[in-house]
């Protein structure tokens, strides 16, 4: 992980905080708690300010994502088409409640407000691939595919 390198390439003001966190999240899959002090020092902020912004925003996590990231859309259009059942079904299958999973797990399950592809609802995104009109019966094959494509 090149957090030090990322830090070196960053500006030194408050306005650089969110873009910096995005970069670290993308590179490391999470914001390592031990990096907060270095981020604060680089941007001349207090550690509590950095922690405040990163814990406020859903895009950032303090624990690494699972190898297979599953996101279920919980927008209204998907809800009406049965999105609630999908998240339940996936939760059962991978034995993780909605929310990020602890360190070292294979999966992380996340829900999002709306992915904006309502025609395809209910929508599930697995490692960046969109699956449309997902039914509880399709969940198994989607997860299997994700496991084998690794």
């Amino acid at each position, binding site marked *: 992980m090149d957090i030090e390198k990322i830090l070196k390439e960053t500006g030194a*003001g*408050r*306005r*650089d*905080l*969110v*873009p910096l*966190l*995005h970069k670290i999240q993308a590179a490391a899959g999470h914001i390592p708690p031990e990096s907060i002090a270095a981020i604060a020092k680089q*941007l001349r902020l207090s550690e509590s*300010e950095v922690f*405040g*912004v990163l814990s*406020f*925003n*859903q*895009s*950032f996590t303090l624990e690494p994502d699972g190898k297979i990231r599953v996101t279920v859309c*919980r*927008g*209204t*259009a998907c*809800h*009406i*088409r049965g999105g609630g059942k999908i998240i339940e079904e996936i939760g059962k299958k991978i034995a993780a409640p909605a929310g990020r999973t602890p360190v070292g797990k294979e999966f992380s399950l996340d829900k*999002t*407000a*709306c*992915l*904006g*592809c*309502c*025609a*395809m*609802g209910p929508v599930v995104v697995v490692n960046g691939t*969109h699956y*449309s009109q997902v039914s509880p019966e399709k969940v198994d094959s989607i997860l299997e595919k994700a496991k084998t494509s690794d």
Partner: protein
Amino acid sequence: MKKLSHPHHLTEWKRFILEGKPSYNKVVAVSSGTCGRARGSLQILAALKQEIERRRLSLTVGIEATGCHGLCEMEPNIIIFPEGFFYKRLEVKDVPAIVERTILKNKVIPSLVYEDPVTGRKHPRLDEIPFYQKQTRLLTENNFRINPEHIEDYIVLDGYQALAKALFDMTSESVIAEVKASGLRGRGGAGLLTGKKWESCREAHGHPKYIICDADEGDPGASMSRGLLEANPHCLIEGMIIGAYAIGASEGFICVGTKYPLAVEHVTLALEQARHHGLLGTAIFGSEFHFDIHIVQVAGAFVSGDETSLIAALEGRKAFPRQQPPFPSQQGLWGKPTDIHHVETWANLPIILNKGADWFAKIGADKSPGTKIVSLGGTINNTSLAEVPLGTRLRKIIFDIGGGIKNNRPLKAVQTGGPRGGYIPAEKMDVPLDYETLSQAGSILGCGGLIVMDKNTCMVDAARHSLNASLEESCGKCAPCRVGTKQMLEILNRISHGQGEASDIGRLEDLAAVMKAASLCGLGQTAANPVLTTLRYFKDEYDAHIREKRCPALVCQSLAQEKKAKNSRKLETGRGAI
């Protein structure tokens, strides 16, 4: 063409592009927005290109990846110009036949043609399809003809002409006067007069001045910003430069969320192109006007839909809203005058300057001129992005353009304006889509999401779902919103589990009144709309849940299970109702 240092260069450039263009007999536009790609449009694109190569037709047939064509339900789809043949839900195996029969012999392939869900009639051409025929596509018309990665496509369609006009034929004041005369109102939801906002920002003391484009679309069921950003990024950029010139701003920001990677890619590329050609940066078009735009990924939380919380997010703080006044146009980003508009508002500006304020003011409703992009979702036949004049009746949007309800079920309600909009019942479908009328009906126009619900929807559950979305997105700064959404949700949860009391209705109304009056920003002020409108129009469903412990639509699970259990008890004991 390199840097444009004079407005005449634009006309020359356009001529140069047109002269250099191969004279295609046919051009195929492949819908390649996020939804199209998710359904395999890039594979169709590759297969088409390969087939055209193989048959050595590259000089006569052009294949272009365009943004979203609007009819999401029919992805992946293509349009074949000049005839405008529309083929839907394609698979790679359809490609050879398309080339052989339609592109070479001009024959229609019936199995790929759009069939109207209402009449069952087949419409091979774009201009015959009711979905397209009944729209007024000002902003989205060019989506079919622009490859968003090529600035040349925008230039050919008279792109950046409005900017040249503003910079060389108009003063900042006359641009503001023109926009005021057009009557354009903010498309992000609040509906303030754009020209007035500009004027107050121009007159405010403080330097430098900033403009912001709010492209962080948080509302469920709304993808109109994404549609524009992906398909025609230059029209947004041109609109922003015009606005910056009018206001006297030197820096602009486009704030996007994290869930739109393709939009970020296209906008970033478009900004680079604009800079490369001297349309952004120092001395735009060789004039004395300097302005640049940065794209910033904010961290997806809806509260940033409030202007002051979006500013806080940009500054690198938690996205908390603050008390207004001072308004952002007086004290905004880093304490400087700042003007914030939604993508769609900015995108309207080149059109207004090109066609004139009078022309624009004649479209749409008296108090709300122009068009609105709406996203149609839920149990509707044509899930889509459509563009209609403001003031269009909901019935026309849902039945004529949207193609009616899936499986011909009866319509129950339409939620307008996202999770903080109200539910309009089926008998009120003559309501026109504009700011005032929707707010009288207890809802909002918001950014134009329309979610259609059929009779299988439980309105208590729908209100609960919307309220839950507001609860999750509440930033927690002010108590009415933080506590109010939580308390209301708990009451609704009880009701949907069959534990509601008659006095709950009054409690919900009291909480809603406090939230509306005392919340700091729009989120808290409107979060109760779904509950209030369902209480207003669907009171009987609340009564069924509370008094009869019954969910008429059989959605609320514990009540539905109770009913099943009762039925089985009936069978076992042979007695009547317990």
